[in-house]
């Protein structure tokens, strides 16, 4: 497994680490069992993300994708932020090793989870109990990783 320089930069100097005490939306995805937890805090004004912070328990790629994801959403509207895909996060980092691609899923899901939390707080959506990636079990993700190996 080899990380790009950009991944290493975001790992060593992660942008926006921390918490926002009075966040408008907080999302946490992943679980300690799988070795990856991402927690994202959003400050939102007039539908625009004005501040963002994260905390991550996870590998180098998890930290770097968290950091990159916060950079990508900052200043964006909610709708723009929701369009950020895991591919976009990975590409912004000049790619991730195949076995680490699930970390970029986690980043996409963390953004979505934080915005969902914001919307829920605002009464914009109902709690529909929809499953997101954090419901996947390690084995499922693992299985997915090896899909291309027959």
């Amino acid at each position, binding site marked *: 497994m080899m990380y790009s320089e950009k991944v290493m930069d975001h790992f060593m100097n992660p942008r926006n680490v921390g918490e926002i005490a009075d966040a408008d939306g907080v999302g946490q995805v992943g679980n300690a069992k799988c070795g990856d937890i991402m927690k994202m805090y959003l400050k939102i004004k007039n539908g625009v993300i004005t501040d963002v912070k994260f905390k*991550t328990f996870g*590998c180098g790629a998890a930290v770097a994708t968290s950091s990159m994801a916060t950079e990508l959403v900052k200043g964006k509207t909610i709708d723009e932020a929701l369009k950020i895909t895991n591919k976009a996060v990975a590409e912004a980092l000049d790619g991730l090793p195949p076995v680490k691609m699930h970390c970029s899923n986690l980043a996409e899901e963390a953004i979505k989870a934080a915005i969902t939390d914001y919307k829920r707080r605002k009464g914009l959506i109902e709690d529909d109990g929809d499953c997101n990636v954090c419901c996947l079990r390690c084995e499922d993700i*693992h299985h997915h990783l090896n899909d291309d190996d027959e």
Partner: protein
Amino acid sequence: MSARSIYFDHAATTHVKREVLEAMLPYFSENYGNPSTVYTIGRTSKKAIEEARETVARIIGAEPREIFFTGSGTEADNWAVKGAAYANMKKGKHIITTSIEHHAVLHACQYLESEGFEVTYLPVDEYGLVTPGQVEAAIRPDTILISIMFANNEIGTIQPIAEIGRIAREKGICFHTDAVQAMGNIKINVSELNVDMLSMSAHKFYGPKGVGALYVRKGVKLTSFMHGGAQERGRRASTENVPGIIGLAKALELADMNMEQHNRKLVALRDRTIEEIEKKIPFVRLNGHREKRLPGNVNFSFEFIEGESLLLMLDLKGIAASSGSACTSGSLDPSHVLLAIGLPHEKAHGSLRITFGDENTDEDVDYLMEVLPEIVRRLREMSPLYEGIRSSKE
């Protein structure tokens, strides 16, 4: 990246020692003959590998004809486990092993399960130990093989091999031990230990990668694993890796000669590191047994952080170490060994293994203790799992 460059991962692999490489070099481009041939240059190779076989045999208390060279420790394990299973399947299909074996043994056993064998994976205690009593209790009339590793590659725990060997011998059951980590660190005599088969791998004791050996006691029934030519008395086909075999024997010879000094030094480094980590860093747990432990092995779990991040930060400071983190293996499950000794997933993910070698010094440990506490602190600051804890500490 860093001015320093310190290698603390000798359980993963070691460099080839100068004397070892020098012993190997003539066999690449000069004495390159195929040992199976009759002419001079072939006989030179043949003689060299037979001398290597004698050296290995002498060191472990075996006869030369009981030593078979292989392409790796993994091959030795696969051969021993599958070969003994198939050779004895008429007698029974039950195998006893432990839950903390290296994957080379574990996955070979799992494969055998898919082939209709039954495998008992003995659980270990919190230190990673099995007891001779457990082994004895697991033996059934149809048990044909006991395979228990000499020393664990992750947590360094050393098993009571002699006692298990005695039981296996009494019951007439073939006993294999994966000594890949023990070789070069522990004096091993296969006769005294009642071991019937033993695996080793040269790159773990300052020899080259891609060569191992299996000791097979005379009389042990074993089917072939590598079918083909008549090399290794018809039991392991493939043109012999002559330089590799020379390197393995030379490395083992050096390790055997330096054993005492090597151990004294490594134990000192190990014990000092364990002591300082426990003193300087909170929320840590030493994995493995305090005494029944490989001389160079230190393994800690650091709560709230993930191992790969820790390794990357250490690497940026010029320190090479290892972790039981799933992330380092490309899998998502952390070390089966750490789970087997009872660690919850999140602690298993946050483990660090430091394995010392001959070139390490006290200054290396000074440097480690300079950078490690700060790295752990930094990663904990970043961790959502540490949030509650931190405030209570600060």
